Structures are given as C-alpha cells and as structure tokens.
C-alpha cells in the first residue's frame, strides 16, 4: 500500500512541479522517485508474510503482487528514462506526460494487488484512462487521434462487459471478494449457475481484450501504430504485464475451482491468439504493427501459463513478461531514434543499421533473438518454462501449435536482423543514440542475458 500511496504522491508532485519552470529537474525527480519507491517496495518483501489482506479485503500485498509491482516499477523506470528525447514527439508537456505514466502504473499496481472486484475495476479503469490520453498525446497527428479513439471506444465497450460480468458474478456468489467467491464456487449449485458462467466469461472477455487476445485483439495493431512510440513501448510491456497479472490473479484466486467451464474457451483463444498473431506479423512492413502482432503472439504464449493456473505458473508469467518486456523495450528504444531520423515506420529504416551503430544493432538483434526464444537469452527460458507448464497439464497440442508458431515468428524477427546486417543502408550517416537510451539498451541487454543464464534470479523469488 505504501508503494501505491507514494506513487500517487509522486504523480502529484510531478504534476505540481510542472507548474514551475524547473523542467530540467523533472526527469531526475521522477526517476529517483521511482527508484525510491522501488527500494521501499522491495524492503517490504521481508514482511510479506505478516501482511494479511488489508482494508477489508480490498487488497492483499502478497508475494505475487510484490513481484509484479516490482517488475512494473522497474520497467517504468526504463521507459521513463527515454522520455527526455521523447519531448516534442507529443503535444503534451513532459510533467503531465510523466504524471499520466505515474498514474497509469498506480492503476497497474492496483491491478496486481486487488482481492476485491471493485479494485480490479478501478485499477483497470485508472490504467486505461491514462492510456487513452497517452495514446492520443500527439494531438495534431491523425494517427494518434485515431489510436486514441479506437482504444477508447473499444476499451469502454470492453469495460461494459467487465462491469456486466462482475455484476453477474456478484449475482451468483453474492460477494466481490475473491476469496469469498472462490469459497462460494465450491458449492456446485452456484458453480453451475448460468449467471456465474456468463459472468466469468464476460470478465474473461474483458481481460482478454486488455491483454489483446484474439478475437479481441483488433485494437492492438492500430493503437500500437498510431500511438507515440514510447507509449507503444509502455503499452506493450507494462500494461500487458499488469493485464496478465490481473488476469491470472482473478482466475487463480477466484475461479481456480471451476476449470472445465472456462479453460476450453481459453484454450481456443490461446491457440488462435498465437497463430493469428504470428501469421499476421509476417507480412507487416511497419515495425510497430509487426511488434503489435508479435505482442499478440506472445499474449498467446502467456495465456498458456494462465491455463496452467497454479503457483508455479506465476513464475512462468513473471519470467515471460520480464523477458518479453526487456526485449521489447530495447527494440523500441532503438526504433524511436530511427523513427526520428528517417520519419519512417517501416522495417527499411533498420537497413544497414549494423554499420551505423553496431552496438545498438547488436542489442536489437539479441532482443529479437530473445523474442524468438533462442537460447541463452531470457526469452528462451520463458518459453521453456511455459512449455513445461503446458506439458505438465498434458496440453500437447497447444504446445505443438506453439512450437510451429515459434518457427513462424523467427521469420519476421529475423527480417529485422536481416535488414540490419545484410541490407544496404539508405544513407551513409551514422546514427547516434542518446546516453539515456544507451543505458536502457545496456540494462535490457544484460538483463536478458543474465536472466537467460540464471533464471533462478527470478524464479527463486516466487518460492
């Protein structure tokens, strides 16, 4: 809770500093603030076990929430690092932009620690509203407008389902508390109630929308493309992580006793998501769209962990989300610079990049390999873990679909690598990347490698 309070305070402070002309200090304030929050947050790990449910069962800061909150905070730091160069990309001033980021992750933190459906609803909405604004933050750009509009309309539509679903679940079980719901569901009369079934499915649909699963993924490519790249990066990483955490938490804490009903549906969604995501990504020429589809595909992989739905799967999602986020952030960090340079969204902007900036190109290549699941990078271990979760559940066909999809994904990830290393550049100039981005790249790179080699660093956290 301290974390959430501090974070909202930090948001307020940022907003207020915006009033004064001390813009130069804003970024350091936010970054150091986030780091302080993170430090305080981690120090609370030691007292997890004493933390019971808090505030009338509204939230519970258990291991799960601590881990995911930590991840979200760190990823946000990586993204906030890059806001400096991002100024001017949006029509929103930096302080407000940062405030929105901070409020968004406040929502995200709520999403990973709720034990009450109202908190889930509030968390999702806080996050979403910030994102609607962020997506439209290039106000004069039509694409940004369109992204905001699409995201907003569809998001609100999905919220309707979420609310209706929550209502139905409440109707069936008489409670908003996850633990109570779980207890009620043990009663077969309630478990078989059509209200409950419809409720769970509608919540599932709403959450599937948030994480971008087929057939509720349609917003993703358009919104990713239209939004400012940094926001895309944020959406693809932090938001998706929070979405999965919320998804998993809900189903793990509340619905784990009713698998036959929803997990067939989720199975199909999962298979469709990876397949459609990967297949569509192949033909994309726009980097951001491609990454959006790749994100959809990764959603599919992560859904496999939700299908497993046990304590071990937490590590799976956590690890996978980390690996995926690190690689994605690194890729987008480079792409922002390229985009600035060439005013071009297509893969061609990567042409010959290896000659222009070997280090950055190397990081991008490594990130792509990580995404493609090639050892010894973190992405591989994530896949390994998820596959073993699925195999433990005897989900053979899903794993085979996943494998074939992994192969397909290699194709489009390697298109960028091919462009960087084997295509002729459009011009001769070298491309410099600012220092903050270098820092981000180095961190992402090292983290990917270290986590790939020593996955215990994360896995052991969820003991």
């Amino acid at each position, binding site marked *: 809770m301290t974390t959430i309070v501090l974070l909202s305070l930090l948001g307020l402070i940022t907003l207020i500093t915006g009033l004064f002309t001390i813009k130069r200090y804003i970024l350091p304030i936010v970054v150091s603030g986030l780091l302080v929050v993170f430090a305080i947050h981690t120090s609370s790990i030691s007292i997890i076990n004493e933390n019971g449910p808090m505030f009338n069962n509204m939230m519970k800061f258990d291991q799960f929430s601590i881990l995911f909150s930590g991840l979200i905070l760190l990823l946000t730091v990586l993204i906030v690092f890059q806001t400096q160069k991002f100024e001017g990309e949006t029509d929103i001033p930096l302080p407000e932009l940062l405030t929105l980021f901070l409020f968004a992750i406040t929502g995200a933190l709520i999403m990973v620690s709720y034990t009450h459906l109202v908190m889930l609803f509030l968390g999702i909405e806080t996050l979403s509203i910030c994102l609607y604004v962020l997506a439209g933050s290039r106000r004069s750009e039509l694409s940004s407008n369109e992204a905001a*509009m*699409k995201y907003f*309309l*569809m998001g609100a*539509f*999905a919220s309707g*389902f979420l609310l209706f679903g929550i209502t139905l679940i409440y109707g069936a079980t008489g409670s908003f508390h996850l633990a109570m719901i779980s207890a009620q569901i043990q009663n077969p009369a309630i478990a078989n109630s*059509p209200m409950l*079934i*419809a409720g769970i*499915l*509608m919540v*599932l*649909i709403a959450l599937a*929308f948030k994480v971008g699963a*087929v*057939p*509720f993924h*349609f*917003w993703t*490519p*358009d919104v990713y493309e239209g939004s400012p790249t940094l926001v895309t990066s944020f959406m693809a990483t932090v938001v998706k992580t929070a979405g999965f955490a919320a998804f998993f938490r809900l189903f793990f804490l509340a619905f784990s006793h009713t698998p036959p*009903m*929803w997990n067939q*549906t989720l199975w199909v969604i999962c298979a469709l998501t990876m397949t*459609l995501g990967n*297949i*569509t*990504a*192949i*033909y*994309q020429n726009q980097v951001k769209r491609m990454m959006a589809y790749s994100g959809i595909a990764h959603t599919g992989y992560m859904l496999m962990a939700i299908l497993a739905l046990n304590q071990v799967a937490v590590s799976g999602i956590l690890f996978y989300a980390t690996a995926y986020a690190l690689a994605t952030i690194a890729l987008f960090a480079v792409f922002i610079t390229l985009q600035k340079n060439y005013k071009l969204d297509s893969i061609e902007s990567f042409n010959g990049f290896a000659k222009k900036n070997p280090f950055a190109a190397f990081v991008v290549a490594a990130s792509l390999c990580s995404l493609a699941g090639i050892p010894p990078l973190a992405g591989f271990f994530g896949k390994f873990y998820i596959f073993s979760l699925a195999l433990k559940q005897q989900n053979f066909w899903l794993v085979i679909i996943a494998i074939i999809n992994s192969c*397909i994904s290699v*194709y489009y990830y390697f298109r960028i690598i091919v462009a960087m290393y084997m295509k002729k550049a459009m011009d001769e100039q070298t491309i410099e990347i600012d220092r903050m981005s270098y820092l981000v790249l180095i961190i992402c790179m090292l983290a990917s490698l270290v986590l790939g080699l020593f996955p215990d660093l994360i896995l052991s956290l969820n003991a």
Partner: protein
Amino acid sequence: MNQLIIFILLLPFLGFIINGLGAKKISRNLAGIIGSGTVLASFILSVVAFNGILQGSLPSSPVSLFTWIEAGNLRIPFSFLVDRLSVLMMMIITGVGFLIHVYSIGYMKEDEGFGKYFSYLNLFTFSMLLLVMGSNFVVMFIGWEGVGLCSYLLIGFWFKNNAYNNAASKAFIMNRIGDLGFLLGIFLIYHTFGTLEYSAVFEKAKMLPSGDSTLLWITLFLFIGATGKSAQIPLYTWLPDAMAGPTPVSALIHAATMVTAGIYMIVRSNIMFTLAPFTMGIISIVGLLTALTAALIAISQTDIKKVLAYSTVSQLGYMFLALGVGGYSAAMFHLMTHAFFKALLFLGAGSVIHAMSGEQDIRNMGGLKKYTPITFITFFTACLAISGIPPFSGFFSKDEILAHVYASNPILWIFAVIGAMMTAFYMFRLLYLVFYRDFKGSDKQLSHLHESPYVMTIPLIVLAILSFAGGFINIPESLGGTAAFKHYLDPILEASNQMHSSINELSHQAEYVLMAISICVVVLSILFARQKYYVRGEEPAMEKENLPMMVRLTRNKFYIDEIYEALVVKPIHLFGDFLLRVIEKLGIDRLVNGIGNSVIFSSKNARLLQTGNTGFYLFAMVFGIIIILLFNLIR
C-alpha cells in the same frame, strides 16, 4: 621368420613412399632402381619363404601385426598368411612384377612422370601382395580395392587425355560393382560363421552340406566380386579399355596379376565353392561364355593391345571354366603360365609400340621381324605358348583345363576347344600382321624403327624362357610327368579334392585323344591364319568399308559398351536427373517452400482482417463474444 613376411610386404610399400614423396627430387635412374630393387628384394624373400614352406620350416599360421578393427564381437586383425597358395602368388607377382619394373625403366625413360609411375607400380605390387597375403577376407579386400585404385591411377597415368581418364574411371567403377558383391559376400560370411579368418571360416564351411543355400549365396556374392576384378561377363568391359595406360602397366595389371585376383580368391575359398554346385555351374558357363565372346571380339580387333586385352579376357574365361568344373589347380597353373606369356605378349607389344613411336594399329605395321628380331622371337614364343603348342607352357596348362572340362561335361569341352582354336587364330593373325610381309606405316615411322634397349629386351627374354619352360613343372602323369604343381597345391585343395575326383576318372588314353584333337585344331587354325594373312596377305578392313555383319559386330565388341551405356549408365543418369528436377525441385523443395509460402500467403490475407474500421472491430468482438457465450451457455 615373421619379419621376413612383413618385409615382403613392406619393401614395395617403402618403394612407393620413397618414390612418391621424392618424385621430383630423385633422379630417374635411382627411382628405377628403387622401384625395381624393392620388388626384386621382395621376390627373393618370397623365394626364401617358398623354400621355407617346402622345407616345412615356415609356420603356416597367420602372422598378426595388430588388431585393425574391433567392434562388438567383430574383430579383424591385420594379419598375414603365407601358405602354399599365397607364396605361389607372391612369387608370380614379385617375379613377373620385377621384370616389368625393369622393362619399364626403358619404356618410360622419356616420361615426365617417371618417379610417380614407379611409385604407383610399387603401390600396386604392395596391394597385390596384401591381397594374396591377407589371412582373412577383409585384408584381402584391402588389397582387392587397392589394386583397383592402382589400376585407376595407372590407367589414367597420362591424365591429360580424357579418354584415358574415362577408361580409368570405368575400370574403378566396374571393379567397385564387383567389390560390392565381394563385400556382401564378406558380410554373409561373417553373419554365417561369425568370423572372417580363412582357417576358421573354411573349417566351419566344411561342416555344411553340399548345396547349402547360405553357401550358395556366399559363393555367388564372391563370384560377383571375382567377375569384376577378373573381367568376366558381365563386368569385363573395363579391361580392354584399360589398355589406355602405359603398356607395361597393361602387362602387370591387366594380364599377369591383378585380374588373377578373382581366381586366387575362388581357389582360396575353394571349399565353399565346391560345396555350392549351382554356383560352380554358373562359374563354368560364365567362364566359357567370356572365353568365347572375348575370343570372337579379339579376332577382328585392329589395335595390338586390344587384341591382347581380349585375349586376356578370354584366357581368364578359361581359368574360370576350370574353376567351374572344379579344376582349381588347373586354373592356378594356367594362371601362372598365362602370367608368363601374357606379360611377355604385352611387353612385346610394348616393344613394338616403342619401335613404332607409339603406333598401335596393326594395319600400319608389318614386316617388323627384321627390325626387331628379339621382340619377334620372344613374341613368337608367347604366341606358341598361348596357342597351346607343345611343349610350350600353355600347352600343359590349357590341356589340363580341357581335360577337366571334358571330364565334367563333353559339350563344354567342344566349345572350349573352339575357343582354343580361335585363340590360336587371332594370335597368329596378330603375329603375321605385325611381323611379316611389308611395313605399312609411314616413312617417318620407318626411319625410327629400331630394336628396344637391353633393359627392355632382357625381361622379354627371361619371360620367353619362362613361357617356354614354365609348363614343365606340371607335366601330367599321362605324359610321364609328376604333376608336381598339382601336388604342390594339394594341401590347399584337400577338402575339395575329396569331393571332386572326376579328373581321375579320365583314362590316359582319353587324355591322349583330347590332346591330339586340341593340337590338331590349333595347328589347323594357325595354318589358316598363315594362309589368310601371310600367304594371301589379307588385311583387316578399314572402318569405313561395308563390313560383313559378323565382322562389324565383333569389331565393335558386340556393342556391349553401347548396350551398357543405354541400359545402365543412361538410365541411372536420367533417373538422377529426374530425382533432381522432379522429386527434389518440384517435390520436396516445392513442398517445403510451399508451406512457407502458404504461411506468407495466409499472412497476406489474414492482415486484411485488420480493416482499420472500428465498426468492424466491434463487430468482430461481438461475434467472438457471441460464439464464446453460445458455446458455454447453451449446451
């Protein structure tokens, strides 16, 4: 004693290494001396070993160097066996080989690849020795393939000429086909007997009943191997082409030694063959067919070496015929005498070619008698020997074969005699065309005509003496001899002889009659040749003229090469082409690329789902929701 055996083998190998590595640095004379010297030393050691065996001082158990291959219960030692049979072969190989080495010093004097040539010759001798000395089938196989390699190297010795290279490849590949048969035979032997050592295998084979089907297959496989190496139908066509190499090579490889490997192998494993009568039948028929076909072809050939080559094939056919009827010692005996006179013939031909500055077409020769007297005399000796005129060596060996054949099957004998008749005819045809009447070559060639140097003629003389006298070691008992050679081999053939005693059924009178008939036939055919080519002076027709059907057929070797080309080589190539173009490119590649392309194609279409229209997206979402709810709520 062991060291001695190993030295027999190692010396030629040493020569190969020295000449091979120092091909550029060692002077010609030295290379020649090393090359021949090592073989001579081997020969002397072989004679010592031979002596040792006669004395009984040489143990006849295998000498093992080291374990070569070991896997599971398969254990193949690198070991050698010197017994009566192998020492005989060793002496022939090193003896005749030495003479040919010496001859080569003169013959190859001008050649730039002199050192290389000698190293190859030594390698060949080494391989051949390995073949005969091995104490198990695998070591024999090493030598077996080794001689194949050497023949490849030596046939293609003048590698700038592509025809020669083709001949070399052909020889190797034809041999390889046979080798596969041999190899399968080896596998089956191992499969059946669990070992590959001669002594153990034969000991176990003895226990099997006659006509055993496993033995049938083993022997058939081995025989396939033999047809390749010993140029029998259907794998004989490489041998005539192999005349592309330097002439001494033809003498060494394709007359005296390498081609005898098949005969050696069958004699070595005689017990298995004796117990497989069906295979024996096949061998005799194949042998006879080969003998007749090759003789027919030889009659109309115009290249001096081709005539000799076909004659070799034909004579090998005789040997196989002998083997087929169980006359192992007769075959070995003929092998030996044949080594003498065929080497002599080839070397003589080499001398002729040398004199003619490389000309090989007999239609351009004639009257060489007065220019190259030594060559003529030695060549004449050889002709008499091969035709089987008593008391030349060929007479005794051929007659023994004929006697065996007659004892086995008189009809086969009739054909065999016809073959002998043809042999005499084409040999004397050759003799008359080359050495008699007038010189028909160009003036330039005429001015160069000369007798070869001593280094070449001395081997000829030695071989002539051997060709003449070689038969005396096996004068049959019917002629008052002791048949020493036959008895010498008895220990090797002991088991087979117990089963095959047909030769003894033939009375001395019958033998006399047979001898008389064959001599008459041969003399008649010689006279006919003399009449035709000396008295009447007929000449082989030139290519362009309209030849009678039979001549055309034989001149063109019954078109066997063309038939093989059309029936085997072309189809295989076409099939390979088909595999590449259809199966590989259109089938497998298409399939794999097709899968890839179909993914891309579906991507191309799947992305169209993303219409950009929010209304459509909402529709799609709702459809998804409807489907999910329908499936779960309405059951």
